[in-house]
């Protein structure tokens, strides 16, 4: 145990830098991180390669503007594409005002009471509820009780509910990232709470809010399960309108075609996946542009 006693000052160097060893530890960690990225990239590249090689030959103008058909070489995805875009826009229009208003209340108005803390925690929990559960709820409430039927609006309401927790949490985060000095600055000029929120906090939080909503919309567009429950049809040859029964969306079209035995249907399923991916890319690109434009000058 003699080694446990501290050495006398000056008896030997008090530091053992071991720089080489510390650097090795850093290099190893970097290696581990790069391996993780590499693995993920590999999976992504394989997936994309598979989809592109299978799907690309089927993509042409007729495919984009055509309607589904029993013959895969004549089939198109226009009803599903329009359904996805239409429902995506409705989801945004519904979840934006509701989600942002709820987040503003929770972040800027609600007192820090036990009830409100429970409310906040539960919103985070809602984000983890399986999407199929939202589908069942949407079927019961929107399709049946409110008699909206198997319409795009019923699907949009269901998806809006599904992404609401994400929208609320993203908005709350964006509001919280605005420093209190901004709130005080507005108050010190004689602003009311609403003027403070409306003219100072919301513009400052806008980039985060917009990004959150666009990404949530992208998630809604990629969902299939809840929409199947609400009642999307498998074979739609007309363009859906919001309140009319009968619609489909891209993920469901993919699911339908992929479950057919014929190889050619697998090909157009891959082509539909490509169309969905491009739609997602456009949305994500939009999120990046909006963020960059709105936050150009923000620096706290």
């Amino acid at each position: 145990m003699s080694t446990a006693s501290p050495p006398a000052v000056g008896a030997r160097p008090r530091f053992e830098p071991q720089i080489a060893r510390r650097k090795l530890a850093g290099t190893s960690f970097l290696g581990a991180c790069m391996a993780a990225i590499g693995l993920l990239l590999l999976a992504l590249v394989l997936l994309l390669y598979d989809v592109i090689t299978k799907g690309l030959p089927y993509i042409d103008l007729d495919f984009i503007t055509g309607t589904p058909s029993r013959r895969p070489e004549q089939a198109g995805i226009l009803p599903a594409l329009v359904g996805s875009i239409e429902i995506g826009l409705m989801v945004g229009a519904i979840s934006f005002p509701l989600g942002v208003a709820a987040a503003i209340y929770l972040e800027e108005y609600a007192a820090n009471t036990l009830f409100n803390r429970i409310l906040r925690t539960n919103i985070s929990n809602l984000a983890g509820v399986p999407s199929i559960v939202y589908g069942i709820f949407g079927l019961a409430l929107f399709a049946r009780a409110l008699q909206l039927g198997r319409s795009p609006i019923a699907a949009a309401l269901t998806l809006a509910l599904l992404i609401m927790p994400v929208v609320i949490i993203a908005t709350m985060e964006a509001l919280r990232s605005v420093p209190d000095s901004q709130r005080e600055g507005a108050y010190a000029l004689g602003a009311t709470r609403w003027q403070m929120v409306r003219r100072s906090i919301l513009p400052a939080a806008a980039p985060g809010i917009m990004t959150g909503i666009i990404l949530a919309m992208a998630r809604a567009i990629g969902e299939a399960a809840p929409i199947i429950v609400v009642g999307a049809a498998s074979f739609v040859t007309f363009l859906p309108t919001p309140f009319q029964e009968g619609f489909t969306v891209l993920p469901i079209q993919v699911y339908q075609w992929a479950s057919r035995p014929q190889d050619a249907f697998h090909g157009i399923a891959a082509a539909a996946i490509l169309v969905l991916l491009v739609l997602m890319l456009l949305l994500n690109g939009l999120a990046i542009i909006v963020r960059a434009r709105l936050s150009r000058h923000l620096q706290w």
Partner: protein
Amino acid sequence: MPSLLAPRQPAIGVTIAPLPPITPTLPVAERETVLRMHGVSCWYGSFRAVKDVSIDIGAREVTALIGPSGCGKTTLLRTLNRMNDLIPSYRTDGHIQFGGQDLYGPGVDPVAVRRRIGMVFQKPNPFPKSIYDNVAFGPRINGFKGNLDELVEQSLRRAALWNEVKDKLKQHGMALSGGQQQRLCIARTIAVEPEVILMDEPCSALDPRSTLQIEELMAELKRDYTIVIVTHNMQQAARASDRTVFLTMGEDRAGYVVEVDDTVKIFTNPRERLTEDYISGRFG
């Protein structure tokens, strides 16, 4: 005139440079009081941060609040425009008279108070808007009906910022330098035509040159406004203020006023031993 403000004993670490001439202050009896504090205590829940303060703030003067960290200077300052109302557990005891009215009386709306008693903060906090919109913010929310362009220009001129920004009013307020941002915040405060301007260590984030600009600006502004400033910088208090309030903490960690007097008096011939020790840098 010998340097009035040199401490009687050489300061440790504080050299007080030759000072610009200070306007002679009027005797107490001739002063017009804008804010009168009587037995003011500030509480955060059960913790008393400031104890039993009774001081008068004179009109069109610069009053400096000095004292060691944690003695409640900022709390006291924020009590004067009801900024602390935003903290749920906060409470003020005692009376603050503002223009003959009890600042904390029933029916007094803090929103109305804050337009008349403006505030400039420690860290410049321009809004993420253009320079013009920063200054126009206050007038707009307060229902200003006159010529906004004129008011913005006039406010920027009085904040000694106009010449630097007149060609880039549409530019972003956050793109300015720190000193310019702070003057923008002063312009923004002036634009709602307050009677009192509270400044909470307005120069602590600024370089010496910008600090001097702000101090010159204060000397200019006190012709029309009453200014109360919290500062940790002894030289700043000596240079820029007419009256000085020295606070410190008691055993119970509550801040209290040790001495209030003309700045010249405080820095040359303080009554209290504690004041002398503090301004000469021996504690705090």
